[in-house]
């Protein structure tokens, strides 16, 4: 990572406390377009607090959050979405009873042209077609976008959810444990979609406990311990053993 480039996302000395519990202490890092950053740490290390700060679920007590060169103060997750950051939480995901196309456009539906559109009529055909096109861009081929999400496998669902985030994000996608509860082969599908999103020029923050996945898909790893960044280094510097040691604090 050359320092010549302008970071797409930068955190400067972010602090966050819940009552007397200090969740984040002076967290600083830079993230660039076209890279996948692994965000790892033990339970309670501050991963959730950090992604909630970046996605606007809550505000930091102090510190600066800079996106695309502009200092930001989110009032709600809507603000971060408008600034080009999409977050995929563990349990939010997709609406299983809606079609793939409807899920991709959920909350951003296309309306028919003219009077019908003004009355709130949706242009389902265009949505289904565009959903297929956009998913293909990140390497996801779904045979029929009219299929409901409940008819997909767990890996396909997660791939579609990430495809959705990649489609709408201009700058950053945050993925919270996207390979949780998935089998080896299904995880592989998800990791490929993450790589494809990076190749599209997005910055991906990948939060996971599954260290082999982190080592496989990320370019750089940021290790959090007790609310502090204890290591920020290229992925090639780590093995599973040294990464585990850094997370637990056995070696630094």
């Amino acid at each position, binding site marked *: 990572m050359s320092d010549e480039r302008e970071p797409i996302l930068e955190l400067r000395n972010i602090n966050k406390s819940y009552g007397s519990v200090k969740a984040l202490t002076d967290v600083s890092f830079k993230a660039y377009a076209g890279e996948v950053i692994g965000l790892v740490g033990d339970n309670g290390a501050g991963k959730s607090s950090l992604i909630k700060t970046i996605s606007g679920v809550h505000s930091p007590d102090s510190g600066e959050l800079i996106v695309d060169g502009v200092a930001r103060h989110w009032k709600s997750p809507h603000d971060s979405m408008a600034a080009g950051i999409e977050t995929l*939480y563990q349990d939010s995901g997709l609406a299983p009873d*809606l079609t793939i196309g409807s899920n991709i456009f959920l909350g951003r539906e296309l309306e028919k042209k003219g009077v019908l559109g003004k009355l709130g009529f949706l242009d389902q055909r265009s949505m289904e077609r565009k959903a297929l096109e956009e998913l293909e861009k990140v*390497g996801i*081929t779904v045979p029929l976008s009219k299929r409901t999400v409940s008819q997909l496998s767990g890996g*396909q669902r997660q791939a579609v959810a990430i495809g959705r985030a990649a489609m709408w994000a201009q700058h950053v996608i945050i993925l919270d444990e996207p390979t949780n509860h998935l089998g080896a082969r299904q995880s*592989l599908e998800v990791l490929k979609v993450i790589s494809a999103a990076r190749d599209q020029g997005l910055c991906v923050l990948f939060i996971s406990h599954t260290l082999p996945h982190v080592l496989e898909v990320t370019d750089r790893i940021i290790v959090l311990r007790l609310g502090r960044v204890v290591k920020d280094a290229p992925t090639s510097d780590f093995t599973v053993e040294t990464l585990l040691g850094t997370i637990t604090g056995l070696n630094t």
Partner: protein
Amino acid sequence: MSTVETPVAANNDGPPLSPLRRAATFATNQQFILFLVLVGVMLFFDLHNSRFFGTSEFTNLLVDFSEAVLIAAAEMYVITSGGIDLSVGSTIAVSTVVGAYAIQYLEGHHFGEFPSLLLGTFVCAGVGAVVGTINALLITKARLVPFVATLVTLSMGEGLALVFSKGGTVGYDPAAAVWSSTGFWIFRWLTLMVLAVTVVLGVVLHVSRYGRYNFAIGSNPFAARAAGINVNRHVASVYVLSGILSGLTGMIWYFNSSGGAPQNGIGNELEAIAAVVIGGVSLVGGVGRFSGIILGVAILTVVHDGLVFINVATTWNEVVVAGFIALAAILQSLSAGTKRRA
């Protein structure tokens, strides 16, 4: 296998469906079966009494259908959004009574018949909107589960209808009776209006943004919220809509029985829920076709009226309805089973 290029297609649901499988899918389509059941039931009644397919019987069928269809539609909106509304029946009772007082008052103060009836309709809808708003507040602000919240308004509505009416029928309105019995062919004007509203409700549910959000919230409220949908506001609006439709149904009862009786509509929430279940709507939300509940209401109406028509004691009605609910529920669980195996 093109696993590399198409990770998602790679482990798809296997080979395309065979023609036989496809035919089986169509034959087990719940809407198709419901339609066959409806036709079968009608033929059955006609075999027992050949006047069943007559204009006067069809006129009555449509009148009874119009008394039931709006609250079934209301229940469908609420259930697909992930809730339930037990208060639709008692809202009919309380709105029909209050509406009857309003019309009595207006006609007593030299408003014409038609303006009085029109204003009375607004009063009924308004009473329904108030009940719906109470449901909405109990659910979205006091965080009660919909079952409990609407159980509260169910009891409240039943009680208030009796209190307001002092137990008797309010008003007797020959004008309403005359007006509600006119129309053309098998349609009465009131029936046509109800059918028009029903069509609008069906279209809104399936092709508009509002309907899309309704299914999304019923399917996964967390995903809906993460997608930027104001879930609380939508849920509140669904209960208000349900209240308004129940209030309008109160007005239909007023017209058809020429007065506001406190027992109008009591218990009808169960018929509405039965129609929704028969129509193949999932009670946990997110799934259902509007055409299903139309068929559900039609089947229940035909059975109800047909039993009378072939001189079977009306007391048998509930037993036959129970059979239909069981049949529909079993069909639904069987087809859910095939979906899982696919």
